[in-house]
Each structure stands twice: as C-alpha cells, then as structure tokens.
C-alpha cells in the first residue's frame, strides 16, 4: 500500500509580486499620509467575460497513456460539488508516429486527470474527477524528441490544436544508486541531487516519492514511510539542487485491523525513491506565465491554440537510495 509523501517543494514557480522600487514606497507613504486609502476609486466589474475552455495534458516519455482534461468555469457549483466545470462530448485525438488514437471520456464522478485537494495524514486518496477527462493509450510509448499532436473538436464545433515534444529524460548523477544518507528526526539531513539534463528540457523538478521501511534488513508487510522534505527550484541551466530532509516516520498497517489505522514502527533504514522530472518549454511557460496569471488572450495556451492551458511533454528519471536512521 503506498503511503502518502508530503513535500514542500513545488513545480510552481514563484509568482512575481509587483515591487516598485524607490519612489513607489515613497508615493504610497504620501498617499497614506493624505488618507489615500480612503480615497480610492471603486473597482468596476468587467461584464461579458469569455469563460474560456481550458485544456491540460502532458505526454510522458516512456508511457503510452495519455490524459487530456477539458474544463470550463461553471456558473454555480452546488455546495460540495467539485468546483470544476466539465466539458463533455468532445472528440479528442492524439497523434504520434504510430498513428492517431481517439481518447475516451472517463465516466462517473472520478477520473485520473485531476486530484482535488491534498490529503492529510491518514486520509484516503482524495477524490478524482472524471469531468472532462479523456484518456487513452497510444499504440506505442511516447518517444523523446518526437512530435505528438492534439486535436480536440468541441461539441460546439470549435477545434483546439496542440503539439508537444517530450524531452530526453535526465540522467541522475547524485545521489549514486544505493547511496546511504544518515538521518535523525531531530536534525535535518541535507544531500545534493545532481543530474545531467536531456535535450529539450526547460524546467526540472525533484521529488521524493515512495519510501519503504526496513527493520532488521527486512521490509515489513504493508509498511510505508512519510517523508517531509524541501528543496528549492532549480533555475534554468542549473544541474544540481540541495534537498533538505526534515522528517521520516514509518508505519505498518496491521492486517485484519484496518479500523485502528497505521502503527508507528522503529525503523532502521528506508529505501527512498527520488524522482527528477524534466518538462519542456511549453510547461515552463505555462507555469510561469499562464497559470494564475494575467496573460494576453492569444498567448494563453502553451503548446496549444484555441484554448487556455497546456499541452506539454515530460520525462522522468528515478533513483533509489537509502536513508539510515542514525538514531537507532
């Protein structure tokens, strides 16, 4: 059973906040001095806004599964309703070197395209929505450096087109395979992650995913670990980053006693999966210039035309290393 892994890193780049240097602060201070806060012109609503279609899809090198999420802002979600408007009935095609595949729409309230919210300790997997989620399998796994296209025909007849090229997977240099990192829960452990970027990479993101506990060199049945870690965001062109591991706590789920929940265990070591994901320029542009930002209407699709959102390529590499519990 996979355990949830918390993290503090994020692939979302910092949003620029407007800091006007020098005179801006001075001007603001003078405004305040004059009671300027009470003198602001009232905001005005903007009417007749287009509720634009949004498309989110990423093709992963080495995977033949493709998921395309198509949404549009809903008018009035009911209380408790997942607040994302579905766009159903679209025809979605993804074309690669092996030919074209039409994706099918997921049924039911859940689907694999979008997770709503983050789970907390002990919670089950959060709900997924099937609204507007189109999935399918290509005839072959996605090949790095190869162009894949997206064609979506909406029920209205409008079309959305996209194109993506998955980057080459990164090569993880450090930590070495089987490396051992000493760790105490009262003292953060720092280790360096170093890689060699593949062609077509514009943005990298590191994460610690699954962790398996070991006690007396054996992995207990139904065991898992929660890791808390943080890392910065590597800038373009950088080939390494420091990861700070704050907490590792391992549990087992006693068989036949599901009601009592997982039980903490004293662990000797944990095998931790490090994942370094590489994204292409389309995703990098999406996350820095489009997601949650104000953007020109004609430039709101990264790798897309006819919709807001992203159609991007990605590739990942994994490395397993061992965290040794130095407190034991």
């Amino acid at each position, binding site marked *: 059973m996979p355990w949830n892994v918390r993290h503090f890193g994020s692939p979302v780049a910092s949003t620029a906040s407007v*800091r006007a*240097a020098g005179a801006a602060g001075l001007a603001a201070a003078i405004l305040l001095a004059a009671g300027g806060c009470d003198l602001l012109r009232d905001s005005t609503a903007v009417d007749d806004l287009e509720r634009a279609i949004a498309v989110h899809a990423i093709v992963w090198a080495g995977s033949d599964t493709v998921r395309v999420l198509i949404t549009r*802002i809903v008018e009035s979600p009911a209380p408790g309703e997942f607040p994302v408007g579905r766009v159903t009935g679209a025809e979605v095609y993804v074309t690669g070197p092996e030919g074209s595949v039409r994706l099918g729409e997921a049924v039911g309230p859940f689907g694999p395209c979008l997770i709503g919210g983050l789970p907390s300790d002990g919670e089950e997997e959060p709900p997924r929505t099937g609204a507007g989620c189109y999935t399918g399998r290509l005839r072959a796994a996605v090949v790095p450096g190869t162009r894949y296209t997206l064609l979506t025909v909406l029920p209205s007849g409008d079309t959305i087109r996209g194109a993506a090229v998955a980057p080459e997977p990164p090569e993880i240099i450090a930590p070495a395979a089987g490396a051992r990192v000493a760790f105490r829960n009262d003292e953060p452990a720092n280790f360096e992650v170093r890689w060699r970027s593949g062609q077509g990479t514009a943005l990298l993101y590191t994460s610690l995913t699954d962790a398996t506990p070991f006690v007396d060199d054996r992995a207990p049945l139904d065991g898992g670990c929660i890791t808390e870690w943080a890392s910065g965001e590597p800038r373009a062109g950088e080939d390494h980053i420091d990861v700070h591991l704050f907490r590792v706590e391992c549990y087992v789920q006693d068989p036949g006693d599901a009601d009592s929940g997982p039980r903490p265990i004293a662990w000797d070591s944990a095998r931790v999966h490090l994942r370094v994901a590489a994204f292409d320029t389309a995703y990098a542009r999406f996350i820095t210039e489009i997601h949650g930002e104000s953007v020109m209407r004609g430039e709101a699709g990264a790798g897309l035309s006819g919709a807001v959102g992203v159609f991007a390529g990605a590739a990942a590499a994994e490395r397993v290393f061992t965290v040794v519990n130095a407190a034991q």
Partner: protein
Amino acid sequence: MPVAVLVLLLSTATVQGFVRSASTHEPIAHAVVEIAALERRVAVDERGYFVIPSIPAGRWSIRVSALGYRPTELDVTVPADGAVRVDVALKIAPLQLEEIDVRTDARAPASTDDAGPPPIRVDGPVISTVPGLIEADVFRVIQTLPAVAAASDFSSALYVRGGSPDQNLILLDGAPVFNPFHAGGLFAAFDPGAIAELDILPGAFPASVGDRLSSVVSVRTRDGGRDRLRGWGGIGLVSSRAGLDGPLPDDRGSYLVSVRRTYLDLMTDAAKGLGLIDFTIPYGFTDAHLKAVHDVGGLGSIAASVYLDREGLDITEDLGTESNDPNAPDQSSDWGSYAFSLRYRQPLGATVLAEARAALSSFYGSFGVWERRYVDFPDTYEWVRTLDADTRTRDLLIGADLTWYARRHRLGWGVQMDRYTFDHRLGASDLDVSDLIPSFRSVDRPTTIAAYIEDEWSLTADIRLRGGVRALHAEDRGTVWLPRLGARVEVTPDLTLTLGAGRYAQILHSLRDEEAFAAMLTAYDLLAAVPARIGLSTGRDIVLGGEWRRGGAMLRVDGYLKQMQDLPLPAAPPDALEDPILVTEGRRPGTGTARGIEALFRYRRGRTMVALGYALSSTELEVAGSRYAPHYDRRHTLDLSASTSWGEHGLFSARIAWATGQPYTPVVGIAETFSYAPERGTFVLFGTPSRTVLLGPHNAERLPSYFRLDVAVRKDYEKHWFGADLTLTPYFQILNVLNTKNVLYANPDDVFRFGRAPAAELEYLPQLPFLPTFGIEWRF
C-alpha cells in the same frame, strides 16, 4: 553715380552690445533691438548680447524693448566701418505698463528671431505662480504645455509629442542632466529661485542643437546681480532652500549660490513621535547650485556652473512602524548626480561670435535590498543581500561654435564630442525581485562626434529661412546625416507662420520598459547606449505653426507629424503589472508615429494672466509586428491656468487639467488552470481553482478621464528687518481641491463569488488625492 557716393553707401559698420537690467545689471535675454528707419530688428541672445551688422554710417535711433521692462530709445552714431558698442540698461516697467510690452507692440516681433518654430519659453518668476506638488517645480510647469504630457501625478518626466523621457535633452546651463528630478519626480530638481528662464524646443529644432529625438529643454540659471548682495529662500513642508547672489569682488562678474535640503524624514519622525502618524518616510535629498560669471575683455565672458544632488532612501529594520511587516526587506539606496559646465564666449571682431564649452555630467545610483533568512525562527537570522545594484551614467563633452553675423545671413557652425560612460551592475538573487529587475552587467563607453553648419537667411524683412545639416558619428553604431529646415513668415503684423522639419538621432536609450507599471514609479532611470546591432535611433518631423498676437493676447497653433525608427523596444507588448522594470536584452528595432495639433492661448492684462492649452494627439509604437498606443498616450489634453491679483500684493492662481484616460489592456476572459504534481502524475487542484485572466489587445482601452483642480494663493509683505528691506511671501496651495479620484492604472483581477461563477474586475491604483501644502518664501 559717383564712385565716392557709392563707397559712402557701401560703408557700413556693426552695432553690438548688451541689454541688461538697470537694477541688477543681469543680462535680459531675448530683448528686441530695432533700428526702425532701416527696418532692422534682432533679438538678443540668452546672454543679452546682440549684433546688428551692415549699418550705414550715420546717426540712428535704436529702440530696445523686453517683456516686463520699459522700452528705451537712444540715438547712436555709427561710423563708416568697424563696430560701435551699445550697452542698454532697461528699467523694470511699472505694473500698469506690463501689458505694453514687446509682445503687444503692433510692429514688434516676438522675442525670438528663430527662422522656424520658436521655442516655448517659461520665465523663472512664472514658475512659482503655478501650483506645484508641495513646492514649485519647473518641470511640472512644462507639463502644462500642450506639447508635453505627464504620465502620472507622481512623476515630472516629460513625454513630448509622443516621445519617451529618454528622448529629451535636459540642459542646465549647457550641461546635460540625467534624471533631473528628486524621487522619480515627486520633488523638483532645481531651485525655482535660481532659474532665469527655460526654453523648450518640442521639435523641428535647428542643426545647432541635439542629439535627441523629441525635445531640447534648456534651463538657464540667473547670473546673479552685479549691483549688490541679494538673498532669497523658502521654507516649505518638506524642504527649505536658501540662495545668495551678488557681484564678484572686482565688479566684473557675479555669482549665485543656492542650496536645498528636505526634511521629510525629520518631519515624519517628529509626527510619529507625537502620535500623529504611525510611519516614517526615511527619504532625504540635498542639492546645491553654484554659478559664477566673469567678463573677459570688452565683450567676452566666462561662466562656470555646478549642480550637485544627493538623495537616499533607507528602510531598515529599526524603522519600527506598527504597520510594518518585520519580515519586510531592508532597502538602502543612494543616488544623485552632478553637472559641471564651463562656457567661454568671445566676439572675434565685429561680426563673429565664438563660444567654447566643456561639461561633465554624471548620475550614479546604488541600491541594495537585504532580507532576513532565519537560521532558527524567530530568534536567529542572518541578513542576505537579495539585490545589489550600482549604476553610473556619465557624459563628458567638449564643443565649440562660431556664429557669423552678416547683413542678411547668420551663419553658424560647430562641433561637439561626447564621451559617454554607461556602467551598470545589477545582481538579484531573490526570485521575486529578479522577475522585475533582471541581473545584468554592462559597461559601455561610446564616443559621439557631432558637427553642424547652418545658415539663417533674412530673405526679406518678413521672411526668414533656415537651412542646415548636422552629422552625428557614433563609432560602430554608425554615422547619420541630419538635415534641418525652417521658415518664418510674418504674414501680417499680427500673424506669423512657421514651418520646420528635420531629422534627428540619438545614441542613448532607457533600460526601463516604459509599459511596465513599476517603471512608472521608479526613483530614477537607467540609461544605456542603443545596441550596436540596431544602431542609432532616428526620427524625423515636420511642424507647421502659426502665431497671432494682438493686445495682451497670443494664440499659437502647431500641427506636427513625427516618425521614429530603430527605437530599441522590448520584443512584445507586455503585461504591465508583471513585466520587469528593466529590459536589458532582446530589444528589437521598433518604430513610432506621433501626430497632433496643439493650441496655446495666453492673455495678459496687468497682473491678470490666463493661459489655455489644448492638444489633440495620437501616438503609436510598433515592434515585432505588434502595434499599440504607449501608456502615456492621451487623445485630448486641456490645461487652463489663471492668476490674478489678490489685493495690492497678493496673487491668486488656479489650474485645471483635464485629459482623456491613458490606455490600458482590457480583461476579455477568464479560465481556470491547474498546476501539475509530477510525483502523482496528475494535475492538482488546491482548494479554490486558480484563475487565469485573459487580456485583450495591449492598451486597447482607455482609463477614465483625468481631471484636477489646483489652487494657490500668495501675498507679499514688505518688512524692514535687520537694516535690510525684506519681502516675505507666505503661500498656500491645494492640489486636487475636488479630490477627484484619478486613476494611475487599472489592475485586472479575478473575483471569487460564492455560489456563482468567478468574475473579473478592475482595481484602480490612485493618483494624488486632495493635498494641501504651505510655506513661506523670502527675499532681500
């Protein structure tokens, strides 16, 4: 005809000399000297010097007049050859005679003999009568002219006929001044009490001046009186100033000293200590101006002028305001400038005037931001410098001009070499900061050499023509030839038509992105040389104008068309709120087109003055296939200023400014977007969906129109204190009397609405609200 008679008729001499004030002996610039019997008129230059060549031998009556002075006539005996010197001292006219000045004399020309569109002139004393922001500011007076637009209440930067501020050459006594304002334009750079006059040439300027695309603003400070010691000063809410002028010890020259210091920091500290406010403004500036003029020989002179400015802003952790976030970064900034000029003028013989000049002007800035990085929250932390910037812009110039005065021609030629230094180092380690201010290092030291030759030809008594060419060589950025033409026709005694056209070039440009919102509020501008791959920016314009004068009224109308090429513009129209202040790489050659019609009406009778300016204009920039109106473009601007006496010694003045709104980028749509969680292999939704606001074409819509009413009163009180006659002038002024909620910018944002689809709205960032200020001026 007997040869002897012919020789007599051909025997001519030159009349030359100075026009000065009878009281202070300072030069009266732009007075008119006229020999009516010969239909010969000339305007004296800024030094009060005039030359009337080719005057037949005999006794002639010369009339000299100037605005605000009593006209004078005197008889002069002109010899058969050589030169006769005539120095004239004009007395200040009593108030009731003010309307009978040179501008209202039916036969008198305007106080300029430019053969083309004349400069717009602002006299120093006028500056203090126009309500300003906190204190009188010469550049805010310029902003009231129809040829000039203002981007915001917070800035005194000049946008002249569709040009950006980096296209203006600001000269202080001949020395270029970079960033001629304090705190980005909140406060005036120059002491108004030290200014004699300023000329602004908003286009179609002659070959002798350059090298900018949009305007030349020449600020000339007073020489200082040659009769006795005088003093002046003022105490205002945020600053005080004091100045002295008087004769040099040998009575062959004069000096002027002016010093200002703000105490905004001290005032807000005190107000906070008294519990009136809960913040301080840790900003201060000090500036000083020194000038000395000395006669050399009979007609020559040498003038030295020094301007010094230093200012700084320090926001430190011990600021200790209740509203301050203790985690807010510390900022420490120092910036300032100096400008030094040396000018030597010497008439060579009777009809040639030589001038040599040298100037050194420099602007420097240092900017640092420190942020706390916690080692052990909240007790242990270290300061990390997240922004480190040093910048310097310098111009060392030397030049010389020769002017030859002939019967119908005035031929000028000259050369100038400018050695620039653009040295910028900026390092940002904070991601938020680096989004707005990119790290870069740039050192560039280009040299330009400019040379010109130009002739002004009096075709008839009523028609003057001007033709010249200027060449600008800028090393690897190329060499350009810049022809200049002008014409002036006095159609009737009341009506004068002018025509001017020319081509212009400049090497420097601003590193700011004019379209970025934050750039409008920066304390100063960073300048650099245009990229060599783009080459010199060039422009050309044509200006057709007419001027009508009768009684105390003057109406001037100008129409213009200006085109600019190879402007180094950011590659694409940006999202103004998110775009970086500086764009240091990837600029592309852009073009600009500006056209418009301007009207300026002035009426003066006694102590009542009314000025009404109106401009209809349109500016478009184009870069990388995208065409848009820049953020400072306004379709209509209207400016009405008036002043009238208030009692015997008081003056009431008011100003109304109205303008159509500036362009902004509209919101046209909204969508929800999700980030991706690689470790989960899916997109994720954190609570409320994140909205992406979709913007329409760049600057496609207009902000609400702008309106402001300012009023001011001032009154003179004559005192005799400490054995001296002293004039005290308290003043009170209110900016934006009606508290009109003018808009600086519209910020598009999405709005969460419970139970309803999200919407969008425009949040308005304000201009200045109702703002009263007061102070007192003094002089002796």
